[in-house]
């Protein structure tokens, strides 16, 4: 009798102590830990609508790519994962994520999305997910500081921007009015260079994915020279070299920078009185251009993708709920991200949604945002599996050029590096 009770007690203890395993859950979502509580609330709504249980498994954002690749390679199973467009090709080529081809309702979702976004979510002609959030980089200026310096309208060209910065410096408004992300990481220097180069009419690679950035008088060279001059004169804040995505905000929010390039959704924080000293003063304008181009920007997409190990049918239900419509037929989750957190969105119905328009008008000019999207450049070169290897070398090379290194030899070396990787893969 005693033995029986001990057995029961032991089983009860094991049952109490053992955490629910992932196998007890129908669908598991894995991603970086942005607003974990909100994600979990969304999943509860999904469960109440679908009857399927779902959990969120947050992975550290700064090492997300590395940790996910190691996990995939070591055979860890995931169902749905957050994917950045920059490593979509790598994961798709490795077979870790699967295309949506053939799943019910995919075509309807694609009809609501602009082609640029669909391209950014595709690899070898197939779409690999629905958008979590998406948008463009935008040029921002501080209207209060502009007025203080007697400048009436934002610059239309990069050279005009430098002149306005000089005016601010001369009038003692700010010593280094421009801050741009030039740190050596995924979200910084190369993105900034892509935007500035686009404004000089340049691009990094041609349609055959051959490097053109090293060519004489290329837009990339002009962009590098423009940045190097700005750093030398002090009009571009030296801190730019160590500031990445998110850190730039601090300068704009505190009023220590008047001009910057940020991601569209960051404008919500810049104009939030609880988080920004300059709330209400930060405006968006078209990214400056040059005689060769009116403007230029880069788009981004973060998407929900289904892994090769998932139950595709169940996973697709959750992907639709998160990136598409819920059971009531509305883009519930994308709209919630837009309204409450200012995250960018792509489905056309949301642009017409009165709630969304009213909400974002408080911190960004939606018409200018839509206009800016027209100047988004094609970055197909990012969707090759060796791009991440190349860009790691490129970050340091570009920093060296900006700090006065020999542009000819560094750019040639980077072009050779690209060609070598291309032939290796």
């Amino acid at each position, binding site marked *: 009798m005693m033995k029986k009770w001990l057995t029961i007690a032991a089983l009860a203890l094991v049952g109490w102590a053992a955490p629910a395993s992932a196998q007890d859950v129908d669908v598991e979502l894995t991603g970086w830990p942005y607003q974990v509580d909100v994600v979990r609330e969304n999943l509860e709504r999904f469960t109440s609508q679908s009857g399927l249980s779902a959990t969120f498994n947050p992975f550290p954002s700064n*090492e997300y790519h*590395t940790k996910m*690749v*190691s996990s995939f*390679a070591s055979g860890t199973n995931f169902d749905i994962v957050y994917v950045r467009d920059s490593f979509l090709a*790598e994961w798709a080529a*490795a077979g870790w994520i699967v295309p949506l081809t053939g799943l019910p309702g995919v075509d309807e979702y694609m009809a609501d999305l602009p082609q640029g976004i669909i391209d950014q979510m595709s690899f070898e002609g197939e779409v690999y997910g629905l958008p979590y959030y998406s948008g463009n980089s935008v040029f921002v200026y501080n209207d209060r500081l502009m007025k203080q310096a007697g400048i009436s309208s934002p610059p239309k060209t990069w050279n005009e921007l430098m002149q306005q910065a000089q005016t601010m410096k001369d009038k003692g408004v700010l*010593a*280094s009015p421009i801050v741009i992300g030039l*740190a*050596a*990481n995924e979200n910084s220097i190369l993105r900034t260079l892509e935007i500035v180069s686009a404004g000089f009419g340049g691009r990094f690679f041609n349609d055959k994915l051959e490097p053109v950035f090293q060519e004489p008088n290329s837009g990339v060279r002009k962009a590098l020279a423009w940045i190097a001059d700005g750093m030398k004169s002090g009009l571009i*804040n*030296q*801190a*730019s*070299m*160590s*500031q990445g995505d998110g850190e730039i905000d*601090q*300068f704009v929010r*505190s009023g*220590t920078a008047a001009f910057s390039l940020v991601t569209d959704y960051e404008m919500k924080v810049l104009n939030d009185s609880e988080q920004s000293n300059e709330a209400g003063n930060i405006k968006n304008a078209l990214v400056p251009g040059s005689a060769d181009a009116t403007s230029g920007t880069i788009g981004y997409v973060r998407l929900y993708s289904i892994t090769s190990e998932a139950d595709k049918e169940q996973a697709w239900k959750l992907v639709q709920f998160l990136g598409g419509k819920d059971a009531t037929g509305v883009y519930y989750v994308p709209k919630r991200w837009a309204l409450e957190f200012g995250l960018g969105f792509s489905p056309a119905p949301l642009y017409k949604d009165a709630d969304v328009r009213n909400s974002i008008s408080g911190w960004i000019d939606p018409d200018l945002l839509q206009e800016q999207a027209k100047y988004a450049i094609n970055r197909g070169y990012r969707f090759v*599996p060796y791009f*991440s*290897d190349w860009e*790691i070398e490129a*970050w*340091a*090379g570009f*920093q*060296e050029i900006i*700090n006065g*290194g020999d542009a000819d030899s560094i750019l040639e070396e980077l072009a050779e590096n690209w060609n070598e990787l291309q032939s290796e893969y």
Partner: protein
Amino acid sequence: MTKNSSSEIPQGRLALIFSAPALLILAVTVLVPLAYAIYLSFHRYNLKRAKRPFAGFRNYEKILTDDKFWDSLATSFIFAVSAVAVITVVAFFLALLLNQDYPGRGILRALLLIPWAIPDVVNALLWKWLLHPAFGVMNALFQMGGIIDQYVAWLTTMPSAMIWVIIAYSWKNIPLATLLILAGLQTIPKTLHEAAELEGANAWKRTQYITLPLLRPTLTVVLIFETIFALKVFDIIYVLTSGGPGKSTTVLGWSIYINTFKKLDFGTGSALAMILGLITLFIAIVFYAFLDRGEKQ
């Protein structure tokens, strides 16, 4: 009369039995990963590629024929030599100070341990904020002191990036060196100094002819430890400069990280780690030989 059971076991075997748990832990935590890293270094092992074939010495050949490796090796040595020099000199004088008799010496000795007790990454983050280009305390202090006109981004240009990395690293590592030197100082009989003083030797002469020669074994140990630590530096680079600006602070530890965890090329990363290990081992052997010769003399 029964014999003590331990006396029936030969001494060597008894030592082995008592050491076995520690050896087992060492084998699992050090030898197995080391053996696996050696294995990886001879393979073309990239997590992004399905095939991971045997590569022989090709990873090593690729590294040794790459200018970037020699640049990062040079940067590692510049960092290590500078940091070890700063640490040893400052620690020596701090130890001399803490070896004197005065009120509050105990408190000062306890305070000395604070930087050492702080985790490496926390120390690096602390310096990152101290040196922040817009809100950093260093900028505020230097501006108040009239040293700078406007705030400076210390970590974005050379040589200031390297100088601040060395300072931040040294600040964390001086306490250990000070404690070692202080322990060495306390083994020097006071009578030697007293006798020399009676003979008219001033403080510098006593340091030159008594303290330094008798401290030589301790200083050699400090040099060995600090050189090995400095050559392996990673955390402070990761947080403060990410190897930049450009590649100015790209030390070997950072190159290993970039190859292994950014490019996911575990083959090249492991080969680089092996090379760094061999360099460190070689330096340790040279220092030990130097120490050994000194002791024989």
